[in-house]
Each structure stands twice: as structure tokens, then as C-alpha cells.
């Protein structure tokens, strides 16, 4: 492979940007601590550079970009059905949830609507991917704080959810199952009963987590009152999802602005909020969210209507000219796609709004003055996925 000049320039620019941060931090008083790009606390490849005064953080800057794969540009050279293969991998823990807003945007442009059966199954799979995502968070949080046991429990029970996703879609966590106008396949036989069992399993994991972690004195000492984010800061940084609800804002796109194509209105559930805004609140909110998700799935499983799984769409998909913006409440927060079409086989432009980038932007603000070990709890409880930050 030949290296072009532009690639060389990009490399030099990236290195120069890193060097700038190093220089700025080094020339001031105190010590500089570099975490990452490979560090167990960063869920992948986020780099955190912190300037310390003793044990306290004076300034801390996250350096994203180590996982930048150029999604928005790649989407411009993929046809609409191909794009879903790609965007699965943005937030890799909740893959199916990534496909849905894009497909909904394309459906909006084409003016088709999925049949009711497809809509309900889509919603169920959406919630299953949320369960797969947040259950890993619960386990991971324990590992970050030094309690590895809950990590094993979470990995154990998460497999049951993955099994159900695999049984329905064929992929453990990159299903690529959503289609414009419906779904690829119908559900396999016996799936509904097994999913009920898996939900039971997840609820048991929640109980276990509550007793083992949330009720633990050490856990409370390390998270209560640590990393408090007030409501106005959270909203001004554009945070969303559980992080925003943990600051007391009652905001959930599933309930408030559910786009057509998902059937959350068939289920009855509660949006939890917490007034504290600290690491404990964020964890607690996510735990309740897992519980509510299992209830949503249980209710929807019992109300899947009969009917076709796919609406009438042409074999070769050309999306008429226009623009559409669809956002849904993904496991990490608000995720939206702004799709511009010029009537071609491929989108003209896709702008992706992913939750983690905004959620992580608050790190310099919230880590000022905290102790070094608290940086780990704050990062863990903010919960980000690198692919979702860098795209």
C-alpha cells in the first residue's frame, strides 16, 4: 500500500495536536499523568491527560480520535442497505439500536412505514440491545472499582440476552437486521417463551447487583457526592440519556418524542430520575433502566400482532430527494441521523449525532479538583463507548 501525501499530512497533524497538549501540560507546575490510549478505565482507547497537584486533579483533558474511522464520509459511498452494516459498529454494544434511527430516517424520506408486526419486533430488539449494553456497564463498573465478581455475573447473564438476539437475527452483536420497510426475517419458533426467561434472568442480575454493589459501603463511599453534575451544566454540555436523567431532568425520547416506526406506546413503563447528579445516581438510574427495559420487553412480547414483516419496497432502493432528521433514545443517550438525499442510491450526506461525545465533553469540568481514583469512577459512571465518541 502506498502512503499518499495527504495521509502523511494527516499523521503529522495528529501528532502535532498531541504534542501541543503534552507541551501545555508539561510546562505548567505540577505533575502530568497520562492515562491511555490503552488503559482499562477508558473502555477502549480514550486518552486522558491530567495535570496533578499532589493527589488532586488540577486540569484534565480527554483526547479522543484514536478510534476515528470516518463514518460520515464512508456513508457517502455506501448504498442505503449497506449503510446499516456500517453503522452497527458505532456503539458496538447496542448495535441494533444504531440501525433504527437511520432506517427510520430513510423510511421517512421514502414515505413507507413498516407493518405493525415489524414495528413491535423492532422495538423488542431495540430494548434487547439496550439490555446487552447496560448489563455490561453494570459489570464493568464493578471491575473499575475493584470488585471483579459482579463483572463475571454480568458477563454470565448478558449471554442470555445475546443468545436471544442471535436466535432472532443471526448475529451475536452486529445483527444488521433492520431493513427499510420492515425486518429481514420473522421470529424463530419458541423465541417468545425463551425471551421471557432471559428477562427473568436479567431481573435477577439487577437484584444481585443491587445487593452486591449498590448496597456496599465502599461503593457508596466512592460514588456518593463524587462527580456531581448540576442540571444546568448537564444541559449546556448537551448531555443526554441516563446521565441527564441522573441530574433530575425528566427527559426520555422513547416517551416524549418516539418517532413513527417504533411502538413504545404499547408498553407501560416509568422513566426514573434522580436528583443528585453524582456517580451513584448515574449508576442507580441505569440499574432501574435495565429493570424497566425488561418490563417493556415482557409487555411487547405478549402483544406482537400477526401480519407481514415487510412492507412493499422496491428491490433497488433509491431514496427521493430531501432531508430528514430522526433521533431515538439509544442506550447511551440521544442518537440521531441527519440524512440528506439527492435521489441517488447513496446518501449525499449523513450527519451522525451520537450521545457519548457530548457526555464525555463534560469531563474537564467535572474532574476539576477531584482525586485521582475518583477520575476512574467518574469516567466509569459517565459510561461512554469509544466508537460512539469518535465514530
Amino acid at each position, binding site marked *: 500500500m502506498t502512503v499518499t501525501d495527504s495521509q502523511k499530512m494527516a499523521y503529522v497533524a495528529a501528532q502535532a495536536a498531541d504534542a501541543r497538549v503534552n507541551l501545555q501540560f508539561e510546562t505548567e507546575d505540577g505533575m502530568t499523568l497520562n492515562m491511555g490510549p490503552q488503559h482499562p478505565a477508558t473502555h477502549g482507547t480514550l486518552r486522558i491527560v491530567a495535570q496533578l497537584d499532589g493527589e488532586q486533579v488540577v486540569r484534565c483533558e480527554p483526547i479522543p480520535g484514536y478510534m476515528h474511522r470516518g463514518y460520515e464520509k464512508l456513508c457517502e459511498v455506501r448504498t442505503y442497505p449497506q449503510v446499516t452494516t456500517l453503522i452497527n459498529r458505532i456503539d458496538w454494544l447496542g448495535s441494533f439500536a444504531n440501525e433504527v434511527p437511520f432506517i427510520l430516517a430513510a423510511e421517512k424520506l421514502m414515505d413507507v412505514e413498516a407493518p405493525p408486526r415489524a414495528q413491535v419486533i423492532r422495538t423488542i430488539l431495540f430494548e434487547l440491545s439496550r439490555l446487552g449494553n447496560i448489563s455490561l456497564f453494570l459489570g464493568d463498573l464493578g471491575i473499575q472499582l475493584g470488585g471483579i465478581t459482579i463483572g463475571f455475573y454480568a*458477563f454470565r447473564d448478558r449471554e442470555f440476552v445475546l443468545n436471544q438476539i442471535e436466535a432472532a437475527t443471526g448475529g451475536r452483536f452486529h445483527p444488521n437486521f433492520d431493513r427499510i420497510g420492515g425486518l429481514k426475517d420473522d421470529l424463530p419458533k419458541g423465541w417468545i417463551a425463551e425471551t421471557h426467561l432471559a428477562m427473568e434472568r436479567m431481573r435477577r442480575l439487577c437484584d444481585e447487583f443491587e445487593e452486591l454493589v449498590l448496597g456496599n459501603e465502599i461503593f457508596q463511599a466512592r460514588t456518593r457526592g463524587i462527580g456531581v453534575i448540576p442540571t444546568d451544566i448537564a444541559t449546556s454540555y448537551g448531555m443526554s440519556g441516563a446521565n441527564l436523567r441522573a441530574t433530575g431532568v425528566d427527559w426520555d425520547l422513547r416517551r416524549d418524542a418516539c418517532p413513527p416506526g417504533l411502538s413504545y406506546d404499547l408498553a407501560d413503563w416509568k422513566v426514573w430520575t434522580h436528583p443528585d447528579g453524582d456517580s451513584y445516581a448515574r449508576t442507580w438510574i441505569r440499574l432501574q433502566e435495565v429493570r424497566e427495559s425488561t418490563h417493556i420487553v415482557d409487555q411487547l412480547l405478549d402483544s406482537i400482532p400477526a401480519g407481514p414483516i415487510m412492507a412493499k419496497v422496491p428491490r433497488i432502493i433509491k431514496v427521493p430527494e430531501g432531508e430528514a432528521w430522526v433521533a431515538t433514545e439509544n442506550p447511551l443517550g440521544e442518537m440521531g441521523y441527519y440524512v440528506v438525499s439527492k435521489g441517488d442510491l447513496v446518501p449525499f450526506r449523513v450527519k451522525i449525532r451520537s450521545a457519548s461525545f457530548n457526555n464525555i465533553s463534560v469531563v474537564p469540568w467535572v474532574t476539576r479538583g477531584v482525586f485521582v481514583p475518583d477520575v476512574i469512577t467518574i469516567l466509569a459512571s459517565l459510561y461512554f463507548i469509544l466508537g460512539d465518541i469518535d465514530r
Partner: protein
Amino acid sequence: MGLVESGKLPKPLTQLLSLSRKYSLWVYQWGLACCAIEMGSAFASPRYDVMRLGVIPFPASPRQADLVVISGTVTDKMAPAVKRLYDQMPDPKYVISMGSCANCGGPYWDSYSVTKGVDQIIPVDVYVPGCPPRPEALLEGIVLLQERIGREDMADRWKGDPIVVG
């Protein structure tokens, strides 16, 4: 030490050495993207349980590791760090490249910021294809590597083609 590296060890000693290396592989988990989660399932979950194979997945730093699993997308920004990590590992060292991204770029074959294959920067012993590979595939890769280590003679350490799982 000199004897080991030059491969002039007597045969029984070589076999003993290979046997003990085979069942005490310390794996450094270099998780980069989606594949890292499948690697986590393979290494940390009770269902797949890698330790029964004589593999210890929790070294604190690459300096204690014999094997590194590169799982996920290597970007151009990340590539220097991957190279530096590999240089820090003590010899003899092995590399498993997990997932299409690390093998050849995967779904980002035409992206401007992704390194198309980690084998451009470090030598790879085992390729595990898939996007993502199932945890079982990674375990098979490890077992195949162990077989090779068991038969290995230090003198011809660098001979032979890489293993491809599947």
C-alpha cells in the same frame, strides 16, 4: 539465555521449555473496538473461561506478556502505540490478530483513517477472521498457537507461515 536464543539447547530441554511455555501464556488484551467485547467474553466470562487452557489473561503490562491479542480497528493515530507496545514485550512473543479490522481493515477497507491490517506494523502469528469472530474462534486460535509453541524449536522460531483459523 544465549543458548535459548541461539537455539543450541539440547532436545529434551527444548521440549521441556516449549511445554512449559505452552501452558503458561500470559495474554495482554489490547482491545480496540467491537472485537474487544468478544475478547472480553472469551477471557472474562464464565461461559468460555480461557483459564482452563492454561492462559492467564490479566498481566498488568505488556512487559509481562507473552501473547498479545490485537482485537479491533487499528487507526492510523493508534498505530504508533501498537508498535510501541509490541516492542515492549519480551521475546519470545506472539501476536493474534482478531477480527477483520485487524486482519485487513474489515468494513473500513476504504476509510481514510484506518490502518488496513495490523500486519503492516507488527508480525502476526494467528489470524482469526470474523466480524466479530465468536469467542470460540478466538479460543481455537489460542489452541492452535499452543500446539505450534509445543512443537517449536527456538532455532526455527521465525520460520513457517501464520496460522489462519477456520
